């Protein structure tokens, strides 16, 4: 155990080499460094601390200890039993840490995550008046929150803790050479301390959200969502462009697979909507303008031509779908005897006799082709209607021409019944699709090649029913612009993540349900609507949305109003006010894309600021840079892979010094150049494996940026073969190991940096 209080005389010495190096660096680096300080100062002007100023050696040396702005760093080095201590010389690392600038306390603990040691950390924070902490132990992915909470409870700002990974990144993977492992651990601690000194205070940021919700679209989804939201006592405005509620379902006869009358569903939902005091129904209403963000939308509408305005905190989009135009397909438009499935629904609903003895249903019209995918509901709807025709007229011949019959669970059992009732099925292939022909008498017939029988059939048809695919509502192009969300070519809105964010948009406050997302059965539509109601209700119930303190901050001094930041932000977290960017901090996810791409370097990310990352680079490359690789690793998948390599105890060369960023999109070009200018042997950028990205497309943006950077570097005469990139899934430990081995070998770095 070492506890060392830095006296004033030591300070310039330990702080000097870094600042001296900074001044003596190559022109580009100085330029970057020079840019860094004002930006950082400007940013922190609003915050309590002024880390850029306090990091300057003079200030560090002369200011009296204990002043709130002075960094007082505590370092806690974990043995993890023998997990770390058997490989890394932990006492030596602790002693080394104690000698680093601004470190006033350093201690080794056997298990620093144990309950008793956590108490010890809190005691150390209080007794030594610590305002920065560095923990050197396992991995931030599992333990960062624990330590943040711990120091937070002791009165330190939790955002001023830095996590250094000396188990997963050192002791578990460099067992072969204890000296090398210890050196790397020291470097990582040095980098951690260098960054910690500059850490600003952070806080959870909140944006108030009231309890008023706009639901766009009055079909089954919109009504279901409105009812669920209103049930909690929240105000709902349900906007429908038509003059009545009900949407597509109004035109439908029955709902598959059990044949429940659609009118019954509509009636029950409308009754509930009307009965609710909290729902205001706005029919014949169109949305003309929409501005704002979660908790603060202003909605302009036109109701039968009369303009109106109201506020909303959240928006649920349930604009539904419509049948594609089938004109020109399978003889549609050539006579009344070729109709669509929706026409058939209307006729059956009206109770009109079909007057057709021979009915041929053709599936997958305008869908499941190069243009678009499966319509999801066509098979069950067609089967249901085929049965209905059979039940109305058992003598009728009903043929169902299909490519694949998609029937799951209950529908699968139902299909068997329908086939028993005498509906005949014919399977065709894309190679030989059916054709509708007309004889001399004008009567239609369908010729089709049955792939199962291997025979060409000609089926007389009094009625041809086309099961046509769907597209999004006609208002979608207009709405997507207003909502600043995206939609696909067919006019279906794009969710934030197809698997885990099906009901959210990337922008907070706007939610999605039902056929506006993609065609689906009524049951699924209702489930999505309930789910979207939940998603919208969460911020309304909490009364706010919040962001972790890791957010973007902007200094407008040098801003050229280029607009790159707000155009690129995937979360709509940057507002344009008078051509200037304004960060909606509560919506910011802290990925750093805007900061890295800002041509004027006006944007900083709390905890991942230019100065902090520059300090890590400088600390890592202070000694023997020619043996070291700087690896920028994203917190999510890439660091996951690094951790898995650790868990697997995979031995690999110890040359890399990892700098964690939330997203690879944070890696600005100047960081890479800084590494080069400081003589790094290599630079590695590691992000999430495509197509996964925690920030939607950060890895793609980073990859594009690296392409641009390489071109730029080649022009300037840099050796771009030392700049590597790797895209890793969180289970790709072996690939990380392979990359490390390959990179050190290609760069001629073996054996790793020995002391």
């Amino acid at each position: 155990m070492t506890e060392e209080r830095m006296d004033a005389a030591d300070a310039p010495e330990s702080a000097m080499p870094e600042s001296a190096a900074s001044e003596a660096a190559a022109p580009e680096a100085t330029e970057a460094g020079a840019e860094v300080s004002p930006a950082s100062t400007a940013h922190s002007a609003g915050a309590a601390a002024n880390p850029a100023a306090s990091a300057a050696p003079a200030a560090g040396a002369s200011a009296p200890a204990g002043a709130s702005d002075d960094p007082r760093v505590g370092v806690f080095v974990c043995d993890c039993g023998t997990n770390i201590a058997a490989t890394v010389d932990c006492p030596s690392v602790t002693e080394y840490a104690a000698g680093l600038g601004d470190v006033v306390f350093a201690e080794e603990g056997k298990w620093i995550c144990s309950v008793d040691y956590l108490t010890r950390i809190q005691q150390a924070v209080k007794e030594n008046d610590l305002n920065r902490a560095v923990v050197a132990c396992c991995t931030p992915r599992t333990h960062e929150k624990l330590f943040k909470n711990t120091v937070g409870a002791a009165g330190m700002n939790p955002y001023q803790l830095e996590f250094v990974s000396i188990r997963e990144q050192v002791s578990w993977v460099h067992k072969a050479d204890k000296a090398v492992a210890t050196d790397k651990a020291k470097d990582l601690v040095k980098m951690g301390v260098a960054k910690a000194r500059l850490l600003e205070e952070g806080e959870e940021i909140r944006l108030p959200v009231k309890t008023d919700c706009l639901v766009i679209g009055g079909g089954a989804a919109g009504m279901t969502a409105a009812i669920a939201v209103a049930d909690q006592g929240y105000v709902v405005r349900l906007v429908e462009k038509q003059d009545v509620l009900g949407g597509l379902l109004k035109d439908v006869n029955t709902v598959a697979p059990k044949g429940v009358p659609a009118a019954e569903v509509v009636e029950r939902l409308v009754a509930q909507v009307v009965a609710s005091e909290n729902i205001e129904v706005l029919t014949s209403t169109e949305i003309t303008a929409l501005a704002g963000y979660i908790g603060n939308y202003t909605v302009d509408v036109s109701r039968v031509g009369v303009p109106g305005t109201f506020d909303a905190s959240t928006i649920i989009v349930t604009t539904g779908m419509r049948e594609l135009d089938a004109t020109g397909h399978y003889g549609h438009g050539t006579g009344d005897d070729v109709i669509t499935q929706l026409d058939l629904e209307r006729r059956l609903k009206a109770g009109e006799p079909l007057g057709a003895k021979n009915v041929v249903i053709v599936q997958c019209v305008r869908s499941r082709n190069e243009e678009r995918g499966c319509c999801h509901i066509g098979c069950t709807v067609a089967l249901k209607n085929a049965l209905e025709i059979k039940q109305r007229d058992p003598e009728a011949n009903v043929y169902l021409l299909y490519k694949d019959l998609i029937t799951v669970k209950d529908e699968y059992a139902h299909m068997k019944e329908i086939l028993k009732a005498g509906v005949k099925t014919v399977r065709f292939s894309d190679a030989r699709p059916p054709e509708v022909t007309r004889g001399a008498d004008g009567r239609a017939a369908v010729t089709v090649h049955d792939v199962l029988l291997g025979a060409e059939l000609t089926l007389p048809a009094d009625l041809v029913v086309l099961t046509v695919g769907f597209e999004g509502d006609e208002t979608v192009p207009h709405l997507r612009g207003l909502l600043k969300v995206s939609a696909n070519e067919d006019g279906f809105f794009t969710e934030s993540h197809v698997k885990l964010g099906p009901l959210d948009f990337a922008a907070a406050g706007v939610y999605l349900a039902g056929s506006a997302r993609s065609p689906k059965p009524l049951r699924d539509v209702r489930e999505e609507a309930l789910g979207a109601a939940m998603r919208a209700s969460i911020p309304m119930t909490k009364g706010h949305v919040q962001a972790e303190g890791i957010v973007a901050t902007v200094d407008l001094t040098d801003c050229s109003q280029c607009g790159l930041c707000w155009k690129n932000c995937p979360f709509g977290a940057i507002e344009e006010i008078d051509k200037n960017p304004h960060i909606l901090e509560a919506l910011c996810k802290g990925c750093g894309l805007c900061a890295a791409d800002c041509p004027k370097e006006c944007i900083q990310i709390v905890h991942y600021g230019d100065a902090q990352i520059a300090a890590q680079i400088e600390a890592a490359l202070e000694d023997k840079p020619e043996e070291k690789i700087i690896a920028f690793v994203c917190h999510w998948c890439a660091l996951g892979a690094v951790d898995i390599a650790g868990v697997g105890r995979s031995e690999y060369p110890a040359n890399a010094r990892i700098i964690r960023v939330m997203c690879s999109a944070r890696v600005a070009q100047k960081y890479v150049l800084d590494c080069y200018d400081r003589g790094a042997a290599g630079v590695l950028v590691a992000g999430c494996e495509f197509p996964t990205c925690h920030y939607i497309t950060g890895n793609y943006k980073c990859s594009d940026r690296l392409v641009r950077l390489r071109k730029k570097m080649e022009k300037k005469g840099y050796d771009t073969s030392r700049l590597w990139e790797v895209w890793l899934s969180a289970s790709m430990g072996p690939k990380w190991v392979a990359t490390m081995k390959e990179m050190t070998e290609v760069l001629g770095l073996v054996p790793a940096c020995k002391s």
Partner: protein
Amino acid sequence: MSDSVLIVGGGIAGITAALNVADYGRHVYLVDDTPSIGGTMARLDKTFPTNDCSICIEAPKMYEVNTHPNIEILTNTEIRKVTQTDDGFTIRLLKKAKYVDEEKCTACGKCVEACPVSVPDEIDGKIGGTRKLISVAFPQAVPNKNYLDIRCRNGSMRSEGACIGECVVDCSQCRECPIAHCVKACNNEGKFAVVLWQKDENIDIDVQSVIVATGIKSHEPPEGLYGYDVFPNVITYMHFERLMNAGGPTEGDIIRPSDKQHPHRIAWIQCVDRGDKGLPYCSKVCCMVAAKQTIITKEHDPSAECTVFYNNMTSYGKGFEEFYQKASGLGVRYIIGRPFDVTEDPETHNLTLRYEDIINGTIVEEEFDLVVLSSGLEPNDRNKRVAKTLKIDVDERTGFFTEPDPLFSPLETATPGVFLCGGATSPIDISESVVQATAASMKAVARRVRVAEEVAV
């Protein structure tokens, strides 16, 4: 009156429901009967139709659950007894011993290193995956704690060389163990976390509502079907998924069991064991799983010859048809129909499939290096017991829970206040599970509002 919510099952549906309910501001008990949350999704390699890495997108949610102030995770825990109260339920949970003190264990792995016995893993066993008698469930497990296989503790692994097998004293009688390597290794670390004398624990909780998210699992084909369990190179699609997975037993190396060589000619047979004797329903996801697996196989080795024998291409969801077309475009051969049988060359362990080429009307025999059976999804084994405990209904034919009125009251059960989501309702994909879980969480938190209103009236 408690406004907590109990969620039974910690797969992606349970995790999603838990995060929604907890973010809404309610306390959540997230109960799973295995040692870790994560469910089936944690074991998958990629997810269709985007080929996102499964654990990469699920693990952050798992960590979020783990650190959420409103969520209490109870793993290795079952629901035992449910009593309905005026405004909810009193529920007795049984937390079965892991024989590891979860407060003290840091998953450092010293006990795992010390354990002398490797046993076949439950999921990966058939493709060579092993684990120690004491281990974490998988590398990203939450909680990230070791657990001891109860078979070691009760002596049934004696013949396998389990170190405590020879002990004449019942573990429950000791307070320190002079024999067990895991206990010694842990104590040497100063942790004292392996506790062979740990007891099962009853926990009573009061909740307002219950969300059942017991999930699905890969259906095991009967022995002998298409040579399964007879020929080493006939595996299920879940096995293949684990072979593809960088976190699987082969670290993502697609090799066949008989000779550990890379198979070049691979056949997928869809709808295996579907029918009146097997699974009486379409499992919905297998077509897309096969498309995904062929695409990934082609990514590993573009020259691999992939053939899929299918019946109806179930490409129902957003982007699914495009995904199937992508597989097709990569040269994956799609053949309509199920093969008649599979025979094996005893020398090479290659497999010959006999099938009808319906285009030419001929019978074809073709040799493959590996046959993958898409054997579908089935409900959790424990559904019947859960149904009995919660007084809800299970479909005798399928084993999934049933909803009295799926159209008007989706996800509701015969017991008010008990809701379903995910694989508890039917075979389902991840996206639909997430939707249902979010919807069920709306119902689970909303009920109290209604009850309160009724009281107010």
